[in-house]
């Protein structure tokens, strides 16, 4: 991983890294842990809290808890700026259920900039996509923002 000291060349990064899957693994959800997850969050519906419920499923935000094994694509540079978590967006499409294999694939979905009074900020959005046997179950985006240090 190279260490970038100058302004971030956003277009070059987009050309090289967007939409290329850089992490993939499979997981299986555990019913008791799903029930704990939902109950701790304050869910009260049996379909989220009772593994015996015929429609038992993961709470809709579960995808946000999955993490890629690798955080960035191979060869992605590191930057000298202030990096911060800029948010998470989870978009469930189909219920995730315990005992069902789920494939988690991650790609860099977007790189964009915003410029404010304190300078330019660069946002990196990694998207995890969840599927079972090719059927998309949902996505979860994680955004990180780098505030570029002023050039001297």
């Amino acid at each position, binding site marked *: 991983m190279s260490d970038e000291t100058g302004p971030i060349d956003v277009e070059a990064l987009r050309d090289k890294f967007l939409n290329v899957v850089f992490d993939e693994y499979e997981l299986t959800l555990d019913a008791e842990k799903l029930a704990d997850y*939902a109950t701790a*969050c304050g869910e*009260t519906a049996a379909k989220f809290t009772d593994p015996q419920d015929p429609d038992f499923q993961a709470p809709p935000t579960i995808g*946000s*808890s999955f993490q890629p094994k690798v955080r960035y694509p191979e060869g992605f540079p590191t930057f000298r700026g202030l990096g911060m978590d800029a948010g998470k*967006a*989870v978009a469930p499409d189909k219920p995730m259920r315990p005992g069902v294999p789920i494939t988690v694939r991650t790609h860099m979905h977007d790189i964009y900039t915003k410029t404010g009074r304190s300078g330019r900020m660069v946002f990196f959005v990694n998207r995890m996509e969840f599927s079972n046997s090719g059927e998309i179950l949902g996505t979860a985006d994680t955004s990180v923002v780098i505030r570029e240090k002023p050039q001297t």
Partner: protein
Amino acid sequence: MSINTLDDVEFGENLPAFQPDTSLANVKRFAVAAGWNTPRFTDHEAARREGLPGALVPGIMSQGFLSAMIHRWAPSAEVRLVDTIFRAPCVVDETYHINGVVTDIDEEAGEVEIDLTVTNDAQETRVFGTAKVLIQGTD
């Protein structure tokens, strides 16, 4: 009032707010279930050694609180998006309020948009965002 169909939803209505359980025991239960069982979420002293104000409520748990609020309001609602920005940390054992307000109703698509916030007792917003949910129309 519990929402059963899209006709029950009113533009601008506030969802019933609730105070989530942010006790250390409950956050630990969540962290273990989520696979995020690290001291910064489950141990005040360890978190302070990292320079944090105390053990933190994971951001993904705040997302879970917001989703639970939606289901308490509309039990049959199908959550399609929860998009959140973590503006400031939520600290374990402190009191927070989970809030939502209906900002759009798409009757054709059956979709309701909800603005979301997690606030503390000082009315400071710690987390904010948007949800999109599907609610069935009248049969």
